[in-house]
């Protein structure tokens, strides 16, 4: 035996926790994201696109799935209304948040990968940067929502902040410099690292804020 019984027990409980969270708290957002992915070809052209044109559906629409998947990760605690319950659980809440973040970020990446692959099949000029660039923009938008959600116990405001940021980018956001989320659509295929790193920093900060605010 490589693992002790207590470790196996903990592992089983982690799996159960992940399954229940996905079923009750994540599935609806996943379905919504999937709908976004499926209607994108209806709104945008997705055939024979050059590199820049391929970035348009990715950055302007697919990136919104970041808000859908990441922003509501703390909502179950907001909805329950009884913070007392949290402390009585088997797992620390920050562990639960980490699990949720892992599957949400992974799903986001896979959905983007799936759509870029779809573009490739439709004779569009896409490469790894399209996946990386879209993921960075989506993660940054989602992380803006998540940190707002950590600071404010409200289910509408956390969506407001990333959408306002999206709107700001829309109306001449090139002034936002390194934090411009539509870079690829403007023909700039570099600099997304700032969005990616900032996204992860904001997510980690959100978990820490949530953790210490619950103590």
């Amino acid at each position, binding site marked *: 035996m490589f693992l002790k019984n207590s470790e196996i027990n903990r592992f089983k409980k982690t799996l159960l926790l992940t399954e229940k969270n996905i079923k009750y708290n994540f599935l609806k957002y996943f379905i919504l994201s999937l709908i976004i992915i499926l209607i994108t070809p209806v709104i945008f*052209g997705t055939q024979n*696109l050059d590199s820049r044109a391929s970035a348009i559906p990715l950055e302007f629409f697919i990136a*919104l799935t970041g808000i859908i998947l990441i922003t509501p990760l703390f909502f179950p605690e907001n909805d*329950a209304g009884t913070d007392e319950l949290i402390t009585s659980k088997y797992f620390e809440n920050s562990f639960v948040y980490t699990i949720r973040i892992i599957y949400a970020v992974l799903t986001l990446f896979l959905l983007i990968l799936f759509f870029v692959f779809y573009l490739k099949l439709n004779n569009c000029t896409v490469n790894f940067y399209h996946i990386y660039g879209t993921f960075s923009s989506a993660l940054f938008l989602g992380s803006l929502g998540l940190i707002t959600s950590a600071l404010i116990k409200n289910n*509408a405001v956390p969506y407001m902040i990333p959408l306002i940021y999206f709107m700001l980018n*829309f109306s*001449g956001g090139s002034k936002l410099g390194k934090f411009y989320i539509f870079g690829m659509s403007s023909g700039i295929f570099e600099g997304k690292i700032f969005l990616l790193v900032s996204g992860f920093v904001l997510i980690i900060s959100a978990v820490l804020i949530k953790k210490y605010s619950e103590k």
Partner: protein
Amino acid sequence: MTLFLKEFKKVIFSFTFLIFVITLFVMLNSQEVLNFTDQKIDIPQPGKTDYGTKYEEIPDIIMPEAIKSLYRDFTVNSYITYPIGFYKNIILSKDKIEQMADIISYLTDISKEDLLKRVYDENTSDELINFENGTSLEKTGTGYVLTAPPAERQAGKEEELTISVKKDITYEEFKKYMQKADKILGGGSDYSDSNLISFGKVPINYEEALKNYNLIKTEDRFTGAYARLFSDYACIVISLMSVFLGISVSLKDKNIKEIIFTKNISSFQLMLSRYLAVITAIMIPVIIFSYISNISVWGMYKEFKIDYLAPLAYSIGWIMPSAMISSAVGLFFTELTGTPIAIVIQVFWWFVDLNMGLSVIKGGYSPFTLSLRHNSLGNTEIFNNNFSVIVTNRLIFVEISLILFIMTVLVYSYKRKGKINVFKKFRNKQI
């Protein structure tokens, strides 16, 4: 009235409202419509060489320009379209190239076979690279062959410049074939019915410039033109942001629903107070910002009779219907589902509407545009000519808002009676 005040306080003392006001300010400021002091409308002076340009449907100008453009796109097999406002580069497949060749061949004297020889089809020429100056690099079995462009092309005498439409083609027929071309491209091209006019660019002369100025002076009384430009931007922000106030005020009730449900207030009274409170809360900052923006030009037109009520009229007539529909969407879907799903609905609607409106950004209206566009200081003639469409549009949105409001009352009242609890199972669960 007490109920209204309670709801109003609930809205304006919320975090959502604070963010709403800050966003409105930031967005309007970023678009430079809060201060127009550097945008004085001066009377045009005679003898100038340039008074700007305009687009007119003159067949003799549109037909040769459009066919040249289509031929140019055809030869490089690259077409730029904007189906919902976004840039899209179309490269046609082999069968569609043939269909396009049929169209050009019919409209010009060039045979289909000849046309097909001139097209660069990247679908069949994977190993051929064409450069913009006409030089091409082709991969062969033994290496690469660099071909220089023909002498006349190098000298800039491109054949495409001499292409012309056959004399017996009428404008109506030409438009019909351009529609077919647009259809092959998937819509949103310069050859579509609404965009074909972009080939009819003509200079504005002094008399026309003076006429435009006089319209701004007499019809808009100057301030109207500024209020309209302000409304163009404000309407975009309001169409999206208002939904959050509707959602937020509804979600606030979530934890105290049991108490509210047992109170002796009719559902209609409560919802009406709430809806009016949300709209009032939205419109107060809109009207304040509209006046801040408009006052900045009052001093510039002291010698003229200006319209001091223009900001108020545009705020209520132009912006308020968008605020009404957006907040009604927020209230209705939140009451129905108990979730902020209205955000997704409104964002989607706003996004598609905004991008479809980009093609008529300077002033073009349809009865179903959520954010009316008039991104131009002046253009009063277009506004006047379309006034009935604008009124119809705004009334449609007011009516839909009221229908949604009534539906919200019905949902709320059924919930109080315990008859519906939609999406209960979809709510977040703490695990």
